[in-house]
Every structure is written in structure tokens, then in C-alpha cells.
């Protein structure tokens, strides 16, 4: 699997793209490594627009990614709900239309803490994007039409809920000072990927209690109930030790077992980070047969590899 940066440095393109199928692209600011670049690969993203740290890529780099991923069957642009990304994707699509490309979008909004359920469209996209990309790209890989890819990616994110907690802040290098503050011994529940304010700041609790309070926000929102099968993704935000991520995973999986929710596919690691923030996001996707098949389909990338 290899990736090259074509044209200019703000864009990466997979070398495994096969002509004739729908192209799958995304884009976003830097600082979330291995997202977004690390998910370019076989049966995953075909091209990615790369922005400055915590800042949307330009319209032109989204456009370039679309052009790179287009081979006549159209392009699915699957990205996260942030003002800058929304605006740049809109202008990129205008440019793409002028160039005769067909582009459709799905906007991830899996972060339950970012807006009430009555305002789904205001919610931010976080680590759930990875699962949306996986499903959309699996559909594209098996030759689905652009409309089908979009429909499935939309279903994927509609069935996905995330929440984050932060224990320490992070610093945008160009700014040079922390972009928010969490007092020592406190944690911010519902914090966003760029330090967007969460729901509450409260004393740090045990992994067991942390798992419970995160699931108490996620499970009722969809809802996810007894008998459901889920994908469970735990992502460290950058400075969270691996051991602690696994300990939290253990607590989450115990609680889910109690609730009668079956984890079909676990993913743990620094999969969608936030510079050097200490903290974690927890993502659950409620699965049906199709989503399961698409999640289980083989893919290969730096960030996520699934063996068929």
C-alpha cells in the first residue's frame, strides 16, 4: 500500500485507486493524526485534503482531492461537521461542477455532546468519521453507485454516536499557548476534538465510572439497547497511555455486556487524535447486516487495516 502526494503538499492520493468506481474523499485540519491522511489506502479513502493544524483545508485542496478520486463514477466526500470544512467543501463542489464532476457529501455529526438531539445538524463529527469512511469505502470497493455509497455512509453515521472527555489541553504550535484550560484533577466531559467546550467540568473519576458516564450519554441517544450489535471504538486523543485506553475499553465492554449489547468489532488506539490532548473519545455504531459486512470487509491503510 502506498500513498503519494501529487500536485501540491496539501493532498494525498492512494495508489490503489481502481478506475470506474466511486471515489471516496475527505479532508480536515492537521493535528488529528493518523486522521485524515492515515486512512488513505486500499478499500478506504482514495484522496484526502490536508489543512493546517486545526484548520480546514482550502476549497482548492478539497477540489484537488475530488479530481484525483474521480474516474467518471462520481465522488463521495465524507467529512465532519465544522464551519470551515462545510464552507470549503461547498466551494470545492462548485469548482468540481464547473469541471464536470459529480460530487455528493455526507457530513458526520456523531458527537452527542455538541448539541441536543433536537439539533442533530449542529453536532460535530469526531472519531465516528472513521467508521463512516470504512462503510462508504467498502461500498465503493464493491462497485456500488454514488447514490448507494452516499446512502450507506449516511446510514453509517446516523447509526453512530460518540462522546469525548479531556483531562489536559493542547497547544496549536503556531499559537504557542494552550487553546483552553482544564484544571488539574478535573476532566471535561463532552469536549470536542479541538478543545470545543463540553457539557461539564468535573473531578476525574475511575475508569469504571468514566465508562459509565460516557455510555450514559451515548446509549440513550440513538438509542442502543439490549440485543443490539455494535462496533466499539476507543481513541486516545494523543497523550493517553495505551494501558489506560485498554483499561477503559475493558470497563466499557463489561458495562455493554451487562446491558446485553454485543461488541462485534472493537478498535482501540490513537486513531483520531487531538495533538497532545490527554483524553479519549468513545464511539459506538449500531450495526445491521449491511453495516457489519461493510465494516468487516478487508481494507488496508496506516490507520486501519482489516484482513478479510
Amino acid at each position, binding site marked *: 500500500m502506498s500513498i503519494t502526494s501529487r500536485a501540491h503538499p496539501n493532498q494525498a492520493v492512494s495508489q490503489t485507486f481502481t478506475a470506474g468506481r466511486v471515489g471516496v474523499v475527505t479532508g480536515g*485540519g492537521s493535528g488529528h493524526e493518523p486522521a485524515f491522511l492515515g486512512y488513505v489506502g486500499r478499500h478506504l479513502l482514495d484522496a484526502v485534503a490536508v*489543512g*493546517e493544524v486545526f*484548520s*480546514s*483545508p*482550502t*476549497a*482548492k*485542496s478539497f*477540489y484537488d482531492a475530488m479530481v484525483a478520486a474521480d474516474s467518471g463514477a462520481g465522488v463521495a466526500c465524507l467529512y465532519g461537521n465544522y*464551519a*470551515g470544512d462545510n*464552507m*470549503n467543501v*461547498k*466551494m470545492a463542489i*462548485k*469548482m468540481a461542477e464547473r469541471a464536470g464532476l459529480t460530487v455528493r457529501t455526507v457530513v458526520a455529526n456523531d458527537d452527542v455532546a455538541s448539541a441536543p438531539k433536537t439539533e442533530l445538524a449542529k453536532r460535530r463529527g469526531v472519531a465516528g468519521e472513521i467508521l463512516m469512511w470504512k462503510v462508504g469505502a467498502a461500498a465503493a470497493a464493491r462497485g456500488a453507485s454514488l447514490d448507494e455509497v452516499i446512502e450507506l455512509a449516511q446510514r453509517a453515521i446516523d447509526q453512530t454516536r460518540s462522546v469525548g472527555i479531556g483531562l489536559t489541553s493542547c497547544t496549536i504550535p503556531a499559537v504557542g499557548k494552550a487553546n483552553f484550560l482544564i484544571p488539574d484533577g478535573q476532566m471535561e466531559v463532552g469536549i470536542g476534538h479541538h478543545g470545543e*467546550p463540553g457539557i461539564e467540568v468535573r473531578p476525574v473519576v475511575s475508569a469504571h465510572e468514566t465508562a459509565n458516564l460516557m455510555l450514559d450519554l451515548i446509549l440513550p441517544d440513538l438509542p442502543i439497547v439490549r440485543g443490539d450489535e455494535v462496533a466499539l471504538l476507543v481513541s486516545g486523543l494523543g497523550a493517553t497511555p495505551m494501558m489506560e485506553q485498554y483499561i477503559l475499553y475493558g470497563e466499557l465492554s463489561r458495562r455493554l455486556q451487562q446491558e446485553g449489547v454485543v461488541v462485534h468489532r472493537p478498535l482501540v488506539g490513537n486513531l483520531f487524535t487531538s495533538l497532545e490532548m490527554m483524553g479519549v473519545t468513545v464511539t459506538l455504531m449500531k450495526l445491521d447486516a449491511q453495516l457489519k459486512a461493510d465494516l468487516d470487509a478487508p481494507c488496508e491503510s496506516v490507520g486501519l487495516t482489516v484482513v478479510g
Partner: protein
Amino acid sequence: MALYDSPEIVENLITMTGEQRAYLSEIDGAIGDGDHGINMSKGFAQARERIHARATLPNLPQALDDLAMTLLEGIGGSMGPLYGGFFLAMSEALAEAGTLDRESFGQALTRGVESVQEVGNAQVGDKTLIDTLVPARDTYLEAQAAGLRFTECLENMVGAAEQGQLSTKDLQARIGRSARLGERSIGVLDAGATSCYFILKSMADSIRRLPVRSV
């Protein structure tokens, strides 16, 4: 008409953003992240390079297209797509018209504002550049409908733009970075509304500075 056939209007815009760089960043610093002047002058300065790299100097629609493409290519965040879309739409309208006159400028302004609203989804009162743009456009079109001359339409437009810009001082930001501050965003001007006023004023000045003609 000479102005349609040269990049002069765009050149003047670029010079203006350079001059207002510090002021625009200062305003953005109060309730934003203090980079508006930098974003603007950086993007616009790149456009000058693109324009001058051409074998022959472009006409106004082409220069606006160069400016738009530079902003869309060089500036992420919100300014690239908002102003990039604005100038791209103006460029298209003027190219279609094939001339710069009262009607074509009215068309270009209308299409430009449409793009900003489509891309940014902001409404009047949200404390954004829309607070400058919408009254400016409305006033221009009213003046045009009332049969005023091009320069009078522009004069009225600039007056409304200034009013709109000043109106942002008492507004609470509901969109963009400063919206996070809630009530604390009241009491200072909006950076984008201010740069937008400077842009409309610069364009109007460029056109009005022409030797008296039937404009």
C-alpha cells in the same frame, strides 16, 4: 471601457488589504483570533503574483477570477470560501455581461452576496460580513431601480455598507469563532464586516475615480 479591460480594480483591492492589515487583525483580536488582517493580506498578495505572472495583464473578470482562485487555493478556514466565492460569482456575472456598467455591477454584487449566503448560511444580525453586504446590495439595487446613475448607486452602496459595518458593534455574534463568546462579543466591530466595507468602498472608489463619463 478601460476599467473592464484591466485588473486595476483588483490591484487597488490588493493594495487596500495590505494597508488595512494591522487594523483588521486588531479588530479580529478583540473577539476572534486576531488573524483576519493577516489572512486577507496574505491571500490578496498571492493574487497579485498570479495576475502579474500572466503573459498579458488580464481584464477585470479574469483578475477577479484570479483573486477568487487564489483565495480558494491559499486560505483555508472561512475567508477562502466566503470571499473566494464572492469574487468568483462577481467575475462570472461580469464576464457574462462583457462590460462594467450600472447593470452588470448590480448583477455581480447580487450574485456575490448570494454566494456568501449560500456558503456561510449567515443572516443579517449574525455579526458577519453579511451585515455589510446585504444592506449594501439592497441599497444599490434600490438606487438602480430609482434610475440613479452608476456613481450615485455606488455612493449609496458605500454609505449603506458603512452603516452595516457599524451596526455590527452592538450585535451579539451568532456565527463563526466569536459566537463562542456569547454576550461578550457585544461592543466591538466585526472584522469581516469591516473588511467587507473596505472592499466595497475600494471598488466604488476605483470606479468613481475615473474621468467623468456616462457611468
